[in-house]
């Protein structure tokens, strides 16, 4: 422990060099921009800049690139809150309550809450990396395909039954999501599924393209129908808004802790930031005293997914550094970077490249502080976008959406796909089909299916593999309990004497 603190101290000395501070600020600003543009994700942004870092020492290079990553994690929330367009996959859950808040004129509160939660989540994850890295790496090794499936099952279980309205519509939306997730190459057999001979469909249907259409485009269509204006125009954001929101946030301390734990866990396993944000949102709503307020502009609905997403995004770097397994697509690109700089990610990195590892960890602390300051300073500026007349901003959003959809895979076909999903989203909204189950099934569907089939390959067909040890059995049991809890609750109520008397 003491040794770690000393190492961290020297890490700070490295991270605080003027050149590194400058790179940190540049990285965060770039990252926020990347996060704001849907489609141009952190992974793309880092991949583009990676070759430039050849000329830098490895520590400075990773500081620049990891700060782009933090910036993208922060920035993803901005368009989710303001326009209902998730800039990054992990900010989809942020739209559920962030956008209604903006519509009620509370865009400033929502953004402040989102940024602050991101910061808290990251901080918890960095502290964990600082002190528990070896233990955590050990824990991550226990996750094979059955455990991974159990985690996915638990995320679905937390989310099922959350949407208001007809449960059948929720199931229908989810099934549609699973079908979309199945398009493309089947990873287990290498066969094409539902591609109908189209080369474009072989790639599969990208989650981001669908989300940009379903959320962003359909929102514009709805706004046009409802009178060509945004509802959040009156939002005025000052330092006072930020301070007032901060004063309210400590009340949710338990939510912060729970969401951070979920995030760290999902980041390490490595499931990544997107499932973490969904799971955390689901759990927050389940455990809330006022579950019906969720989805209508509750600040808890912003805090939960943002805290978890940032905690997961940060802790995803740990398996990358200590095991060589990326916990997220962005971490995968960073992994390639490490190898390019002549560093070998994995267990020996912590032993042989102490300066690098601790410099990076120190930069995680500093980068997130710098990030929080920069994004908060920009809140009024971002919210001012809402005062631009709809007729102008709608065209800009449409263009940004199209560019975003194109950037994901550099494919024109995806723009068409986005437009189609815009219409589908509009129709679904009009018919009261919930969008969240569709998105959840699409983003987690293929990984879940893969893990399920890998597990059955390993066990030669026996379902017992999902209860074969305490870890997978425990997670599965928790998942089943969460899934059937509403049903059990109803049965218990029906059986209780008072209900019988009535």
């Amino acid at each position, binding site marked *: 422990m003491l040794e770690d603190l000393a190492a961290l101290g020297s890490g700070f000395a490295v991270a605080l060099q003027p050149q590194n501070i400058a790179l940190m600020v540049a990285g965060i600003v770039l990252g926020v921009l990347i996060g704001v543009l849907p489609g141009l994700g952190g992974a793309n942004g880092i991949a583009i800049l990676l070759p430039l870092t050849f000329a830098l020492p490895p520590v400075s290079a990773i500081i620049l690139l990891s700060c782009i990553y933090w910036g993208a994690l922060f920035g993803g929330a901005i368009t989710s809150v303001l326009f209902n367009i998730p800039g990054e996959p992990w900010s989809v859950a942020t739209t559920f309550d962030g956008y209604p808040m903006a519509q009620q004129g509370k865009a400033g509160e929502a953004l402040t809450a989102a940024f602050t939660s991101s910061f808290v989540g990251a901080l918890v994850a960095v502290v964990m990396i600082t002190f528990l890295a070896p233990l955590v790496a050990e824990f991550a090794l*226990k996750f094979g395909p059955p455990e991974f499936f159990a985690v996915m099952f638990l995320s679905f279980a937390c989310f099922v039954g959350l949407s208001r309205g007809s449960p059948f519509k929720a199931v229908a939306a989810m099934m549609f999501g699973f079908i979309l997730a199945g398009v493309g190459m089947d990873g287990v057999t290498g066969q094409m599924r539902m591609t109908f001979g189209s080369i474009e469909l072989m790639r599969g249907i990208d989650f981001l393209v669908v989300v940009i259409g379903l959320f962003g485009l359909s929102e514009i269509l709805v706004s046009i129908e409802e009178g060509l204006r945004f509802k959040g125009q009156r939002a005025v954001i000052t330092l006072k808004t930020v301070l007032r929101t901060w004063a309210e946030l400590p009340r949710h301390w338990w939510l912060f802790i729970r969401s951070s734990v979920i995030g760290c866990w999902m980041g390490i396993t490595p499931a990544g930031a997107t499932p973490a944000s969904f799971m955390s949102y689901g759990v927050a709503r389940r455990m809330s005293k006022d579950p019906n307020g969720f989805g209508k502009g509750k600040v808890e609905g912003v805090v939960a997914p943002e805290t978890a997403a940032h905690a997961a995004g940060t802790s995803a770097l740990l398996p990358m550094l200590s095991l060589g397994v990326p916990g997220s697509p962005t971490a995968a690109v960073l992994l390639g970077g490490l190898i390019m700089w002549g560093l070998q990610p994995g267990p020996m990195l912590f032993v042989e490249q102490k300066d690098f590892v601790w410099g990076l960890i120190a930069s995680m602390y500093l980068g997130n502080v710098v990030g929080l300051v920069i994004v908060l300073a920009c809140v009024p500026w971002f919210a001012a976008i809402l005062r631009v007349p709809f007729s102008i901003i709608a065209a800009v959003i449409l263009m940004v959406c199209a560019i975003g959809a194109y950037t994901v895979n550099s494919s024109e076909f995806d723009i068409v796909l986005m437009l189609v999903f815009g219409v589908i989203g509009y129709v679904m909204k009009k018919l009261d089909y919930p969008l969240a189950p569709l998105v959840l099934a699409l983003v987690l569907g293929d990984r879940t299916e893969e893990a399920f089939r890998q597990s059955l390959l390993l066990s030669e067909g026996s379902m017992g593999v999902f209860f074969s040890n305490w870890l997978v059995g425990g997670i599965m049991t928790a998942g089943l309990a969460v899934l059937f809890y509403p049903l059990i609750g109803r049965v218990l109520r029906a059986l209780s004497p008072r209900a019988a008397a009535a």
Partner: protein
Amino acid sequence: MTTLARRQLFAATGASVIAAPALAPQAAAQRAWEPARPVQFIVPAGTGGGADQMARVIQGIVSKHSLMRQPLMVVNKAGGAGAEGFLEVKNARANPHYIIISLSNIFTTPLSTGVPFSWRDLTPVKMLALDEFVLWVNAQSPWTTLRQFVEAARAGRLRMGGTGSRQEDQIITVAIQRATGATFTYVPFRGGGEVATQLVGRHIDATVNNPIEAVTHWRSGTLRPLCVFDARRLPGEGRVTETMGWQDIPTCREAGLDVEYLMMRAIFMAPGVQPAQAEYFRTLLARVMETPEWRDLMAQGAFNTTTMTGDPFRTWLEREEQRHRSLMQEAGFLAQ
């Protein structure tokens, strides 16, 4: 196994070609043609994998040493096991502003998916290196030699993890099955890093990972190499772990398993490009391969540094295509 054994011969042919591009009149070739627009460097695989890493190292070297006036942009086109990337280049006929890095999926993807393309649709530029495959087991497993491992595999079904389905890792697994009579349960994962970790966590029994994907776990004492699927031992001096270096890993043939497999890392261009345009990239790549950064990458990943151009390369491609066809046919991996 005769088809597999032929590789030895190609390696020898290849070695004689290594020096050839360096002798070419570089200045003259460059005056002849130069890219007029940014060049797209297509990677028919996802970000973070071996091909992607190599493409980005090349991009980094080119920009660091200012080897090109126009920018070189890496674009990942991984859809349909790389079919998307290959088709894009195939359809960019005579366009010299595309290059593509290829791995074994240039042979396996058309065979397993039926998507119509082959290396003949592209212009072969240069083979950069061959990636090695090593049989790894967990260091806590009782198997310290290949013989013990094969005995265990014959006695009961072992679980072999690998990257992707009907691609190189599974092809090697099937080749081992045919050579030994053992049966493995092959479990596909998304990438080499994931496979290595699954082996460290003992969720699977063995893998055929590339050296670079497993070296760190070997050094930390959690994985153990049994043999390398090449005709000769890996290059290397000194030690990687406390007791062993790359050169100390026996070849599979020495250890009694007659299976060889190497994965090509090569650069292709669109069909119908001018010879001078292909020559430009050949020269460029030759210069990239002279840099210390490239040598570092080769040493780190214990690559087989065979490089080829021109006719020997075409002959090699033809034979490799045939070999993949027969291997995949025997394994039942061909598209219906």
